[in-house]
């Protein structure tokens, strides 16, 4: 694979870009692979990448029903943070965040990780106590966060209204190394690196069945034929329960629609990511200039990638109160994605009742930030056949044992 660089851009520009290679190959599936991953989203591609890079398993196929990165990887609001409360969450999200720091260099693909800082506003006394607690926990977990006063909030984000008529801003939890990245680029960068390692990314190929023999996985049946493997990873947010059913087990998951919207692009007016949990809204400004806004989840289960408009209304109202200048900006586009929500709002990275079949799902409304850490932990789990240290707390068994990882106090709002 040719390296991307300024020199390459100049060279190609002078011959009207005739020499650029494919970012990833588009192969026909082989009959058998050492490992097969269903789902070429961020998590699936990252898993494949670390299987190859960390564990030397490169005879891998990644099967995708649609187009790679086309699920929630390509439709989230791109926030990256690791200011979680519980140890197991802080560990995996901070691992992910730290991998994001060097991902562009590692993949030779600019994923535009921008550690511009994430701020979660405290707008009630109760929230202040909650975020102080998170700051204490993060301090012991080695996650850099601090509780900042309203004056600092205003300095970091001048367009915030501190003394709105309803919920004045009383402070914020600030993670200076949190931020955003270009979501598509994360999928494309991993895909390019996987393809370069010789892995096969097979798009427009739907898994129609999971093949079993004596309680072990032996392959998958797809719209492009049978593919054999003894090591299968299911990483298909939004369709996890459907695939699990084909593998013969049930998941403690509900699938709901989560919405987002962007405004028309304007010149830079907001350099940080702000989340306001009391009023339910969060916003950042993309490099293109669009205000990127996240909404809430629907109160009912469904598999459509659209949602109820009243969530958009509620979110927009909350954000106009928080950032009054946005009232005359215009909503350019709204969309939805299907998220898999578990009982404790924490993910599942686990062995399954089917031997040789592993699952990574349940990231709910905030999976994008976890992609590198999730892939890292899932690859370790698939390579060793048993949960990795990073993944161990996220096993399916925790629901049977009641060993929940509930972050609701740290994350009152969807994101």
């Amino acid at each position: 694979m040719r390296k991307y660089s300024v020199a390459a851009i100049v060279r190609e520009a002078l011959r009207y870009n005739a020499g650029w290679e494919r970012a990833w190959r588009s192969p026909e599936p082989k009959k058998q692979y050492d490992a097969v991953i269903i789902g070429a989203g961020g998590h699936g591609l990252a898993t494949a990448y670390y299987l190859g890079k960390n564990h030397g398993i490169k005879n891998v196929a990644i099967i995708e029903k649609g187009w790679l990165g086309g699920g929630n990887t390509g439709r989230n609001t791109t926030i990256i943070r690791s200011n979680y409360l519980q140890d197991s969450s802080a560990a995996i999200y901070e691992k992910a965040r730290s991998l994001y720091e060097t991902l562009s260099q590692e993949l030779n693909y600019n994923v535009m990780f921008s550690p511009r800082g994430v701020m979660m506003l405290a707008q009630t006394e109760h929230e202040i106590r909650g975020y102080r607690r998170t700051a204490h926990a993060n301090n012991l977990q080695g996650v850099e966060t601090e509780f900042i006063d309203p004056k600092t909030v205003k300095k970091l984000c001048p367009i915030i209204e501190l003394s709105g008529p309803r919920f004045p801003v009383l402070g914020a939890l600030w993670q200076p190394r949190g931020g955003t990245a270009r979501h598509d680029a994360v999928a494309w960068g991993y895909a390019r690196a996987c393809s370069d390692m010789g892995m096969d990314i097979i798009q427009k190929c739907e898994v129609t069945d999971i093949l079993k023999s004596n309680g072990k996985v032996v392959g998958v049946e797809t719209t492009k034929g049978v593919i054999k493997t003894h090591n299968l990873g299911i990483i298909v947010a939004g369709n996890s329960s459907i695939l699990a059913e084909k593998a013969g087990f049930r998941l403690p998951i509900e699938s709901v629609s989560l919405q987002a919207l962007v405004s028309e692009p304007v010149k830079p007016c907001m350099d940080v990511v702000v989340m306001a949990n009391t009023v339910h809204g969060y916003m950042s400004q993309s490099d293109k200039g669009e205000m990127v806004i996240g909404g809430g989840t629907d109160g009912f289960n469904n598999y459509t990638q659209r949602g109820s408009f009243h969530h958009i209304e509620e979110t927009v109202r909350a954000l106009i109160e928080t950032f009054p200048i946005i009232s005359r900006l215009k909503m350019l586009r709204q969309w939805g994605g299907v998220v898999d929500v578990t009982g404790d709002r924490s993910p599942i990275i686990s062995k399954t009742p089917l031997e040789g079949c592993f699952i990574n799902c349940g990231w709910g409304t905030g999976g994008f930030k976890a992609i590198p850490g999730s892939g890292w932990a899932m690859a370790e789990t698939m390579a060793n056949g048993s949960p990795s240290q990073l993944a161990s707390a996220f096993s399916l068994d925790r629901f049977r044992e009641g060993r929940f990882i509930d972050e609701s106090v740290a994350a009152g709002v969807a994101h």
Partner: protein
Amino acid sequence: MSSRLSTGGKLIDRSLSKEFMFNGRRLKGFEGDTLASALLANDQVMVGRSFKYHRPRGIVASGSEEPNALMETGSGSKLEPNQRATTTKLFDGMRVKSQNHWPTLEFDLGAINSTFSKFFPAGFYYKTFIHPRFAWKYLFEPIIRKAAGLGNAPKEKDCDTYEYFYAHVDLLIIGGGIAGLAAASSAVKSGLKVLIVEQNDYWGGRAIVDEINIENGSGSDWIYQQVKSLSNEKNVNLRLNMMAAGVYDHGYVLLHETLTDGSNKKMELRQRLWRVRAKQTIVATGAIERPLAFAGNDLPGVMLASAVRDYLVNFGVSCGDRTVIVTNNDDAYRTAILMKNAGLEVPCIIDARPSVSESLSKQVQSLGIKILTGKAVSTVTGSKRVEGVAICSHAGSGEVLETVACDCVAMSGGWSPVVHLWSHCGGKLEWDKKNYMFKPDLTSAPLGANGEGMLTVAGTANGFLISRDVLSDGYTKSKEIIKALTGKVPKISMEKAHSGDESEILPVWFMPQGATRKLKSKTWLDFQNDVKVSDVELAAQEGFESVEHTKRYTTLGMATDQGKLSNINGLAVLSNSLNVSIPDVGTTTFRPPFQPISLGAIAGEARHELFKPIRKTSIHNWINANGGVWEPVADWRRPFCFQRNGESIKEAVEREIVNTRTNCGILDASTLGKILVKGPDAARFLDMIYTNVMSNLKVGKCRYGLMCSENGFLSDDGVVARLSDDSYLCHTTSGGSDRIHAHMEEWLQTEWWDWKVYTLNLTEQFSQIAIVGPKARQLIEKMGVDGLDLSPEGLPFMGFSEGFIAGISVRIFRISFSGELSYEIAVPALKAQEFWDLALISGEEFEVMPYGTEALHVMRAEKGFIMIGDETDGTVIPQDLGLDWAISKKKEDFIGKRAQMRSFMKSENRWKLVGLKTIDPSVVLPDGCYAVDGESNSYGHKNMIGRVTSSYFSPTLERSIALALVENGPDRMNEILNFPNLDGSVTKAAICDPVFFDKEGKNQNV
């Protein structure tokens, strides 16, 4: 030059002139002008700069599909970026600026990007700016951010207002062209309740420009008659300036009505968002003309042929003195003929097709217009506006045959039906092989709540391009809907439009056919985002084969026009590069809104005080006037304390506590949730909702109850009173009343739908006033009781009675959250202030004082009472808090029981409630700090063994106290734990009993 002609202009009123400022220049327009037509009338051809390369941009279109003419209008609290000039009405005194340039529109330093554009092809961002690592955040990203964006963000609060409307109709018709009007007139005659909306400020759509013939009269007359007769009917609502923004599940349609495009008035009602539920909707949204892709097609002066015609007919504006037409279909010939008839020069029509029908060519040639068939534009010449076109053979690679001077190029690549609304909610499309366009697949309509199609499409939006078919489709579709909605076949007189056939279109996605890479790199698809044919081809070459990949990699169609002009050409280029058919490439997903709508309109009236209106108790105003220091609690405000002159908040809280414990305090506890549960199965229901048994509670008694989630975690607590055999009053936390009510209803409606239980949230109907302290009983007796026995035997702890105090009907509960003798008195909300006032008067001699939430919290912590949200966080089970006694062992089931039987719930090592006393009694532990044991956990974090859940300075004990959850805490009494602070210091505290004060309950049981 572009200019205003001395005659013509159906939409303007030349007697009313309007002055406006563009980039500091004073210009003139007329009533009825759009900003775009007024700019063109003043020869302002260049109106902006493109997003990426900052190239000069001119007006291309005449409607909502316009990608270039985006302006900043107004200033201060009326500043609005990215206003589309083609859909913005001109008003007198309007101030307009062009965007995305520095220092000026004509001379923009950002245009250096254009000079080096060959180095910035699609996706170049991903391939560079990688090293050094820190440079992205500190160098590259800030530069890119600054260059990106279009208009400036406003700096002030919006001074205007917005509102919501709701409508329920039988039939919603979107689009007021001839198909929509035909459908409306027949539906109205059949008695249906109809709403018909049109995004323009005039009826008729394209028909008024392309003078058509209906029943041997002019189209304009027919439209006038239709609207006039509809206006007389009661069962129809006709609305102009109303754009259908989106279609949602179950036929919910969002309409955006523009009430004013602005004025210089402060605070006006600007826009209105309609939420419409229609039994059926007809989408008659017409079509949008496609540009042609040829080198230099982005120069100012290159416009859609239909737009050139629109400006001429509707506004009396000529877009150029010498206009060259480039086309692949018959429609653009209309522009040529109109221009020529208006006395303007049309040197030639460049038609990519090998031949043209004889009648058309005769008609055009008789006007002296040359037709060049089989030809294409090799490139447009000029730098900031069109100076001429170099003509080549369409079949070749672009060798120039001749050059024709001109100042306007009118292009037409055919028409694309506006299928957005059809597609928003899942309607499928099909490829029309004859007209080369996507149109709705009527067999695959979006489905409504009943599983039937909820939308239909009529007229041009349905793929009919000739007026005869358009009108007839309007009637046909309304007939079908009338039959479906009324069950009767309506008798409709179908009026007919007369039009001849047109010759076939030649599909041309870029020209010439064999264009070189060099030409393709100057051939624009997306004018705003600077996406060229070469970019789409590069995306395909690099493996971005899915149309969604191409869109995201090149940003094709992601600009503020959402690809209305660029999408079809773009995906045709992609299909060509991939060598697959266009329908196999497919389209990207159409997302609402059809046109961008302001966030203000979405928020509507719910702003400022009306955003989550503050819930007020009956005592709210008194508290406000008497030193109450507010804190937000759920949607309420509660007083943190009552501050007196010269007193600090800390002093106020301590005074309130000491006074309550020694004399008497009064608290407005009205925010506590109060849910009435009633019915033959009420007892059975509450046995499931609470962990304790409620069915054996005696009438007239209270019991403290706990509620858990399905997962066994403590979710709310409160006192339950049994009012009668079949009715209970359940008290919840202040923040929990709505949530718990919804929780009860969810179980009743989804699981126990056959149980006979009603729930009613009475939180606001009753105020609750707590009178607390050693002198509480004396105070109430002083107020005058009737029908109540307040003696310890008459109203014992955890009992309640009903009667009168000071003549006011009350329900009095003897319950305590402070450990003192305490009565919570429920009174009708409207009587609460009177009761409060009387209590204060009677209480004077007992030194009664109001107290706030902080005193409440400290007193409950002194007593070791838990607080939902402090001691609980969604991970705590009642057993962790020593509340095992409140969990029934007898009951077969309750919500959370099964979950609490799981192994980890019974683990020995759970974090459990204890008290903490700091070694230094004056030091208060910080909220939320953790205890560590000096080890590391498996993640390498410092190992945590407990955390502070509540921490206060207790004036009663004159020392700091804290409640905490500590691993196996109750078995570690007196152990000293280390709590690291954020500054690196460590606070030491010893584990103790969580009940710090009056463990025996002497004070409360009197």
